[in-house]
């Protein structure tokens, strides 16, 4: 042990003798040491990890049912020993309770905990689907549900959590959106009709005069196409010496 210490001290000294400043030498040595340590602790390759997908948050009404979906991605084929397990942690509590486990082709649902007789397995393990159905929700079911899936030999992965929020109010009343859509469309129709007749009325009253000198030809043609010329003949006459036309109603 003492020999080792002396040898290390000698090594440090010989290394540091190459540098002029002792502090720089020590800092560089520490950096090299940390780099060596981090190389040893490198993360395992991501290409072999299993990735689990659930939702982020789910909203439901009191008394309704909800389907919590859980699926996973794995580079290996779905094995026969695939397992799914769901755990539940109520809001404000630090303990999780296991409520569902699927293994060996058999689904084991909760028969003692808070979800007894309310939990049903609706997933398809051969299709990597481990979804569960919770029935007759209550406010005490608010909490975080965590799904963990394992596909042997691909077992390294992080469980994924979905948060359940149970509401009391009905989101929207019947007929509100229906009435709104119908009202908006019919209102637009009435508006278009009113604007059309208003334009015709204004032109008939000669509020919009059509004998202005500087109105170019194509604009007159467009106005007449819209029916604002009241069916009369419109003859554009060029002003001698210029490029503009004057429209005179026949």
């Amino acid at each position, binding site marked *: 042990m003492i020999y080792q210490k002396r040898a290390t001290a000698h090594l440090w000294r010989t290394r540091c003798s190459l540098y002029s400043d002792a502090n720089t030498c020590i800092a560089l040595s520490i950096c090299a040491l940390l780099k060596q340590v981090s190389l040893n602790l490198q993360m395992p390759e991501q290409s072999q990890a299993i990735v689990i997908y659930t939702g982020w948050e789910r909203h439901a009404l009191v008394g309704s049912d909800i389907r919590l979906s859980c699926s996973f991605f794995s580079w290996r084929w779905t094995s026969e020993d695939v397992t799914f397990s769901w755990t539940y942690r109520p809001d404000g509590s630090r303990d999780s309770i296991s409520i569902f486990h699927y293994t060996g082709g058999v689904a084991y649902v909760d028969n003692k905990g808070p979800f007894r007789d309310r939990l049903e397995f609706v997933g398809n393990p051969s299709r990597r689907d481990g979804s569960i159905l919770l029935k007759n929700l209550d406010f005490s079911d608010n909490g975080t549900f965590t799904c963990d899936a394992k596909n042997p030999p691909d077992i390294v992965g992080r469980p994924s959590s979905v948060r359940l929020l149970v509401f009391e109010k*009905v989101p*929207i009343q*019947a007929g509100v959106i229906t009435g709104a859509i*119908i009202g908006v469309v*019919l209102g637009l129709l009435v508006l278009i009709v009113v604007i059309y007749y208003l334009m015709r009325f204004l032109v008939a009253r000669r509020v919009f005069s059509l004998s202005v000198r500087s109105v170019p030809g194509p604009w007159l043609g467009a106005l007449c196409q819209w029916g604002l010329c009241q069916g009369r003949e419109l003859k554009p006459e060029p002003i001698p010496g210029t490029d503009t036309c004057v429209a005179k109603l026949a």
Partner: protein
Amino acid sequence: MLLILLGVLILHLLILILLIVSTAVSAWSVTGGSTTDLWYSCLTNNGGYHCRPASNEDWIQAVQALMILAVLFCFFSLVAFLYQLFKLVKGGRFFFTAIFQILASLFVMCAAIIYTVMSPDDADKAFGYAYVLAWVAFPLSLISGLIYIVLRKKE
């Protein structure tokens, strides 16, 4: 000319009847013994016929609104057709009739598409005859609108 007008009018009335039946009857989905959507969800027991209001989700309300608008626009198109039949100048086209009829077909298409996409797919849920009528009314009204664009008043 008279035959063409009569044929077009009969087609228009047929489309209007199809749309009214599809909107009014609550048979867009059939599940076992019960029919659902758009307005009521009715169950046929051996005792009787029990109905409760259909679920008031956003997409069902949108489908209701679009079907009602399609019926209204088809009716406006019929009124415009009868009006323009007597008031149109020689050689004129049934412009407003075509516009309303094509808008009605657009609304039916949107309603049918929304219902198809958003209806929850249970195992034993099938589409009812009102849904089929809506899909039949869409190409018929589109064809009718296009006929009105092409049609010209002669004589």
